[in-house]
């Protein structure tokens, strides 16, 4: 097994505050790694540093052994690193189908083929498949902004997979999603992880969701890695319990 993502000594300061303070970890190919920790512990900042949305003060990020620190988010995405967002981030006025095509169009062809070629960038079939997979088929023609919160979350996840990513970073995929849809989402994510050999890192506050989805969990507190291990080990770890329950 190869390491898809390696993070080494990553640091990010905001003024005097070390939001991410020397974090190192790695993710194996095909793995689903959970990333948990109290609010404000630096999970999202860590994601943003890995994805090039923020520039880390020091440290290194490698994807498939290649150093990617300093690359722009769009370049990183075309290398196969995709993400979903904590808050809803779809294109509200475009239809659900257009959202999906948009999510994949920069991964194939050239600027010329994107201007002169087919309007759907040859992604019509792939978009239909993704719609079926996430059970959004009935909504294909609807404007994405008109979907329910849970449906938009599903669409956001579906968009992250349109480019056929190696690695997907999911930021609170279960946040605000109702129980029925949550089971659905977990089942879809597990299926896509198996079928497409995609590797995931999942930030989540819903413990039930993380513990059942992930094989390995990383706990962060105050910008540092507090613990790492299997879900049952994490559940029993006194330091983790203390970080969550406070003093």
């Amino acid at each position, binding site marked *: 097994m190869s390491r898809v993502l390696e993070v080494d000594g990553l640091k990010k300061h905001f003024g005097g505050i070390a939001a991410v303070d020397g974090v190192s970890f790695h993710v194996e190919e095909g793995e689903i790694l959970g990333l948990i920790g109290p609010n404000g512990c630096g999970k999202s900042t860590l994601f943003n540093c890995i994805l090039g*949305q923020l520039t880390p003060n020091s440290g290194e990020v490698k994807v498939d052994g290649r150093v990617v620190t300093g690359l722009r988010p*769009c370049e990183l*995405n075309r290398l196969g690193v995709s993400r979903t967002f904590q808050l809803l981030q779809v294109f509200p006025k475009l239809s659900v189908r257009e959202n999906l*095509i*948009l999510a994949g*169009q920069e*991964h194939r062809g050239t600027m010329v083929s994107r*201007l002169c070629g087919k309007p759907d960038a040859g992604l019509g079939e792939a978009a239909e498949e993704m719609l079926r997979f996430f059970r959004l088929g009935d909504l294909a023609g609807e404007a994405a902004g008109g979907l329910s919160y849970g449906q938009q979350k599903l669409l956001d996840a579906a968009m992250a997979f349109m480019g056929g990513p190696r690695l997907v970073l999911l930021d609170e995929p279960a946040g605000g999603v109702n129980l029925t849809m949550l089971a659905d989402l977990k089942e879809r994510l597990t299926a896509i992880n198996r079928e497409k050999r995609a590797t995931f890192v999942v930030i989540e506050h819903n413990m039930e969701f993380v513990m059942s989805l992930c094989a390995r969990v990383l706990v962060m507190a105050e910008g540092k890695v507090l613990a790492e291990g299997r879900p049952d080990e994490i559940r029993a770890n006194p330091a983790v319990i203390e970080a969550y329950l406070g003093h």
Partner: protein
Amino acid sequence: MTRTGRLLGLAVGALVLAALIVVPMGFNRYGLYILSQWAVMSIAAMGLNLTLGYAGQVSLAQGAFVGIGAYTAAIMTTHGLPLIVALAVAIALCLAIGWLLGYPALRVQHHYLAFVTLAFSTLAFLVFRNEEWLTKGIYGISAIPRPVIFGFATSRPLPFYYVCLSSLALVSLAMWWLIRSPWGRAFMALRENPIRALSLGIDTRRYTLIAFALGSALGGVAGTLYAPLTQFVDPTPFTLSLSLDLLLMVIVGGAGFFFGPFLGAMIAVLLPEWLRITEGYYLMLYAVAVILLLIYSPTGILGILDRVLAARRTKAASARRQAAQATL
């Protein structure tokens, strides 16, 4: 869109085009001039609609690009070069300058960007007025010839109107293709959610510059037609107010709607003419009409249509849901 909807659209389009070809045959010189101006301004407004309406980048410089196109055409054709060569030069020039003007948009947005482009607009005006060796300054360039196309002289108003109309048709086709292409989709992504776009591999920097360059180039195309239309070019039409007029056309017609610029240009160019019968009041009536429209529908005329259609779709969708529940 449904099949009947598409057929209906095609039929209406064909009818409008036929009317635009046939009806003006009976127009006098002034009527044809106004209608030609509508076609020219529609092209410029389409360019701004691309930059502002689709890609979401505010620009108060579109009038300056019309000026650059007009001066390019005026200078080159009065030196004996054909208009088509001037057109190519104007497009290249406006693409390049538009691309450069896009750089500030990578740093600043919205009203800040409006001010940067406003500064450029003023700069362009100063060049038109002060660089007499090139533009003849406030005296302007007169006796601009109209082109001869495939042996046909278009110096009379009707043939030249057809030149403007067919240019508008060509630009519209190109724009229709562009908007439906992945480029068009990427432009809309810039407008709707640039951060998400970036995370999906869309090079927002590149697309922003392209949106500026292409939108500005259409300003240049409009200018290239404007010069032979008026046959006289001086700096006065290219003050900031032209940029504001074009902005008005895009907003009133409906920013981000394909047909918005046509309607907007119609209102900005034709409505004042129709209101002339009210004599001294026409500017006031025009202003009131525009204000009322924007209060009623901030998204412009096509915004009203869009709301009506959306309401109908919602109704149909909820009816479908009800029917689906009944079978469960």
